[in-house]
């Protein structure tokens, strides 16, 4: 256990009494086992949770991922996602550029004028 540091300066009678009254309390013999068991249980539970997650993955995703034919689909999906995403951005930019409301009406009328 740690070495107790002593407060600096002269000690009053009350301090001496406090030192005697507030002795460190030795934990019960059973406590270290109890704390260690709890800590072990917590770490084991965390490890099991991780293991269960890995097993869950190996049943479905991992089996699928082992088949090279399936590697194409995610790649295509990612590419398609990228293209679709890009397309959405373009549409949005065009939509924003295209005047609408009162300004669209004004532009339309201007274009019809000779």
């Amino acid at each position, binding site marked *: *256990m*740690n070495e107790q540091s002593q*407060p600096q300066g002269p000690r009053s009678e009350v301090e001496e009494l*406090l030192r005697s009254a*507030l002795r460190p309390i030795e*934990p019960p013999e059973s*406590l270290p086992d109890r*704390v260690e068991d*709890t800590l072990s249980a917590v770490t084991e539970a965390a490890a099991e949770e991780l293991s269960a997650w890995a097993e869950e993955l190996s049943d479905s995703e991992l089996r699928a991922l082992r088949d090279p034919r399936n590697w194409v689909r995610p790649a295509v999906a990612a590419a398609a996602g990228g293209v679709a995403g890009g397309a959405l951005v373009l549409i949005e930019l065009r939509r924003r550029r295209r005047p609408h409301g009162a300004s669209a009406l004004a532009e339309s009328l201007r274009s019809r004028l000779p």
Partner: protein
Amino acid sequence: MADGAQTSVPDGADKAELDRAFEQLYRDHLRDVYSYSYYRVGNHHDAEDLTEQAFLQAYRHFERARRESNGRPLRPWLIRIAHNLASNYHRDRARRPQKVLEETDPIAAPHGTERIVEGREELQRVIENLEHLPDDRREALIMRFALGMDNREIARALGRTDGATKVLIHRAIKQLEQELGDDE
């Protein structure tokens, strides 16, 4: 947390080293945490529960605490966890601890029979008067005298400045001195 980007999951070797460091912390300070818990809750049963909870919380946050401690001792951090748990305990029960001394013999050193009897009464009075102090003063005295923490450690455990802690302890001792004087 500002350093969230730097947070990393320890690999196998790091984890083993971390566990060894925690084991050392646990061995070094089990008695401190238990003593503090006992003096705060006043009975062995709840002190055991609090100690267990304190180490469980400490284990969960150990890596971060170690990283942020910059090499400073972790005892104040550990006692702060026990301190917060004890505060929650009292808040939940909305009552003060019944008695601080349950079964412990405050005098471990041998004395003459008369001195022991006199000493017991006197120490009992100290404990009783300690209960009348405001919470923060009593907690600081427990840290100082039961755990042997210095001002800086107590300041870190209580989240105060060193100066404020020095004043707190000084006032706590003065108040206790005065109350003991009033008893006579």
